[in-house]
């Protein structure tokens, strides 16, 4: 009797036994599963394995693994859990082979080789898929973070505010400048207020980037006001000996900056 036939005959037994072992592992996500659902999933995996043994590790099998991993990651299984499940399935398959062919050592070796090959290929593919899915998630999160971290707010007619929060690296600075310039054009902004209250540390690179933002907005025809330089930051700038900000209008805080801006476009706030 061939390996595939043996596995087919023992599908139920393998599924039940692996399911029982998995239930005892104390993985919360598996504990939440109904026993019948778990056995059904194991049965499906074994059936796919049988097909893979017949036809080799082909595209269909890889696709199956891909879908399975996708599904499992969606349910937030860790890669450890997935590898554990594969190990348990492998142990059980080896058991079955041992029991079935105990008097035919050459067959045991041959079948063990086949099983090991398929199992290790499955491990590799699942790990790959898992990494890929995680990478996608990281990229998406990074994009979301980037969008969140550089809002450009049209505060009033002709005035936009850029509240910078957190550390500014060169990449973020470039991105902010780009978004700022586009906002100036689309909003027809005459005044740009850059608020650095939320920037904890300043170094020469950051200073240079801020200066570039100011110069670029001037090229477009709007004026840049820098507000919210903290006492610490001011001292750092002096110590760094960067006399960069002499050509930029600076104000203590956003409130003062807004006053300056309104003054420049000929408006004022009065009480009724």
């Amino acid at each position, binding site marked *: 009797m061939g390996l595939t036939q043996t596995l087919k005959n023992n599908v139920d037994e393998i599924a039940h036994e692996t399911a029982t072992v998995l239930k005892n592992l104390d993985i919360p996500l598996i504990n939440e599963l109904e026993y019948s659902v778990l056995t059904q999933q194991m049965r499906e995996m074994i059936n796919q394995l049988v097909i893979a043994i017949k036809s080799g590790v082909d595209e269909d099998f890889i696709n199956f693994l891909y879908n399975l991993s996708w599904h499992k990651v969606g349910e937030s299984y860790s890669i450890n859990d997935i590898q554990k499940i594969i190990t348990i399935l492998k142990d059980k398959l080896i058991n079955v082979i041992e029991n079935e062919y105990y008097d035919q050592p050459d067959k045991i070796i041959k079948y063990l080789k086949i099983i090991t090959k398929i199992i290790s290929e499955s491990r590799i593919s699942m790990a790959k898929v898992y990494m890929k899915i995680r990478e996608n998630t990281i990229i998406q999160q990074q994009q979301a973070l980037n969008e969140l971290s550089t809002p450009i707010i049209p505060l009033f007619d002709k005035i936009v505010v850029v509240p910078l929060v957190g550390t500014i690296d060169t990449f973020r600075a470039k991105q902010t400048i780009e978004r700022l310039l586009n906002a100036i054009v689309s909003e027809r902004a005459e005044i740009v207020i850059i608020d650095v209250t939320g920037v904890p540390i300043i170094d020469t690179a950051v200073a240079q980037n801020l200066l570039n933002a100011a110069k670029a907005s001037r090229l477009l025809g709007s004026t840049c006001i820098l507000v919210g330089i903290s006492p610490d930051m001011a001292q750092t700038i002096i110590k760094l000996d960067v006399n960069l900000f002499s*050509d930029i209008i600076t104000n203590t805080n956003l409130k003062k900056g807004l006053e300056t801006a309104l003054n420049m476009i000929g408006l004022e706030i009065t009480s009724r």
Partner: protein
Amino acid sequence: MEIPILKIDNCLVVSIQGSLTDTAALELQENLARDISQQEPVGVLVDLTAVEIVDSFVAKVLSDISSMSKLMGVNVVVTGIQPGVAITLIELGLTLDSIRTALNLQKGIDFLRASYK
């Protein structure tokens, strides 16, 4: 393709359309210098609204054109610089510090009018 230099009141207006070739840029520089000396305008307005990107050479020529006009004693205003162009200029260190800029053609004309009234 030659870039037309238009005269409005006593100002010269140059509106650059689309991408500028190296020869066209140099030609413009020459023609503008000649027109400034012949027609003695009070202001020159260079409109870059339709210029989406520039390479380093054209950026340098545009910067030169502005500084040159300024040197010849006229008020220069550059209008409608696009974000991409601004970034290129900054990266090349051509910050046009002495040149007046404006958001759009209207603002530029307003500035020139105000300067000679």
